[in-house]
């Protein structure tokens, strides 16, 4: 796909396939087009050329769940974790149908799956960054979505909570879901993701982390700074 925003080429000829049961990290510098890519996949931005196909059909509503960046959310709005997860049921309810017993049970079960059942009544503002991300994953589960897009999901999340989140996502991957997670964090990419999509306005590389994260690809993404990144046992570090 090719995406243009206000005459500026944000993404150029981006092409990639993701198989069911894949946890993919989307990495790249600021302005590389990670959020643009997610917005296009979610149908929030018009695609100038190309198509996005989910499950071999054109993109559609309930199939896909999107967790935008923290700054896009209205934190003044006082909702609890279970309220947020119930939002995932919206597309499954008709216009005038209220959530029933089954919906409430499903919401509790989804919160249980991400380890937050005991926090179901807590306000979102009372939860830590990692817990909030897990609530959004639970919302995607309640939506019965097969494709999850998480934009900057590690932002403001400590390392331990990042690992908890990755554990939950890997379990969902094992059930056949496709998960794309945009991140700046280059730590332990090989341990976390099956595939990595390296972006910098175009696809620099796409594939298993240990094959694509070469010095050349890092330089394409980060320029001169990229060559100062070094690979150690756990991933790329400065």
């Amino acid at each position, binding site marked *: 796909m090719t995406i243009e925003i206000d005459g500026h080429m944000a993404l150029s000829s981006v092409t990639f396939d993701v198989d069911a049961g894949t946890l993919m990290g989307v990495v790249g510098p600021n302005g590389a087009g990670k959020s643009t890519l997610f917005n296009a996949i*979610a*149908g*929030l931005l018009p695609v100038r050329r190309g198509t996005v196909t989910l499950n071999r059909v054109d993109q559609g*509503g309930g199939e*896909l*769940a*999107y*967790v*935008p960046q923290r700054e*896009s*959310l*209205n*934190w*003044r*709005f*006082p*909702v*609890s974790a279970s*309220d*947020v997860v*119930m*939002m995932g*049921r*919206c*597309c499954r*309810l008709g*216009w*005038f149908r*209220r*959530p029933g017993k089954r919906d409430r049970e499903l919401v509790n079960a989804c919160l249980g799956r991400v380890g937050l059942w005991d926090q179901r009544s807590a*306000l*979102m*503002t009372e939860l830590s960054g990692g817990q909030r991300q897990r609530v959004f994953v639970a919302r995607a589960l309640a939506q019965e979505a097969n494709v999850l897009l998480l934009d900057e999901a590690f932002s403001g999340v400590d390392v331990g909570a990042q690992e908890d989140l990755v554990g939950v996502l890997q379990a969902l991957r094992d059930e056949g879901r496709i998960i794309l997670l945009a991140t700046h964090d280059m730590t332990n990419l090989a341990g976390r993701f099956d595939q990595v999509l390296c972006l910098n306005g175009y696809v620099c590389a796409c594939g298993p982390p240990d094959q694509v994260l070469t010095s050349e690809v890092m330089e394409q993404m980060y320029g001169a700074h990229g060559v100062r990144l070094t690979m150690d046992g756990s991933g790329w570090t400065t």
Partner: protein
Amino acid sequence: MIDFIVAPLEYGFMIRALIGSVLVGVMCPLLGAYVVTRNLAFIGDALAHAVLPGMVVGFMVGINPAIAAVPTGVGVAVLIRTVSRRAGLSTDTSIGILFATMFALGLAMLASATTIRVDMEDLLLGEPLAATPTDIYVSLGITAVVILGLFALHHWLLFSSFDPVGSQIFRTRTNIVDYAFLIMLALVIVIGIQVAGIVLVMAMLVIPAATAYLLVRRFTSMMVVSAMLGAAAAVTGLYASYHFNLPAGPAMTLVASGIFALVISFRRRAPI
């Protein structure tokens, strides 16, 4: 004390004023809970001013101004969103453009219409004691429609209020919900103008909801508490207006503000 409460109810106009005030006291804060948490306070003020041309047309052709204001309010509500989408402007900017234009149009129409006499003070500050039976029927009809709308769209409204970007995945539904919200807001403002006036209807939208925001944690509780506070302020303000010969809109606003001042002096909400 009982006389203070019961004596005014011997008059039909006072009973109509009481019914109208309670409806406005409940409905404005119910919508106001969204207005406060979605940072839409300006839109309430703008819609109140923007329905003036519709009301003037109502006076000119001899139909109830509240009924005449409904299509104007709905039209402006839809235009606000359409202008901001098409022009890529913030909602605040498109509100500013339409609010000023429509209010200016209403004032120009009032100035040029020599056949009608309108008490601008009643229009600006509200006069519930002048409510006619038709006004009350219109208010009851609008209340029923808006309560049904809020009930039916509750979860979608929560979704688009908390996660305006994520909810856009369901673009068609989210857009319908956002338009429906603006239309409901316009309808409630129309009935609010009769009671609180163009200038002060925003007070009934915002102040009880802001007070409830300080008192309770969750949004649904906030809606209930703000409606209770709004009804209390409206009724207390109406009695104060009757007994102390005050204009109703300012009396209700001062009661609501007094409750807010009291609450904020001992309650605070953690910063976001």
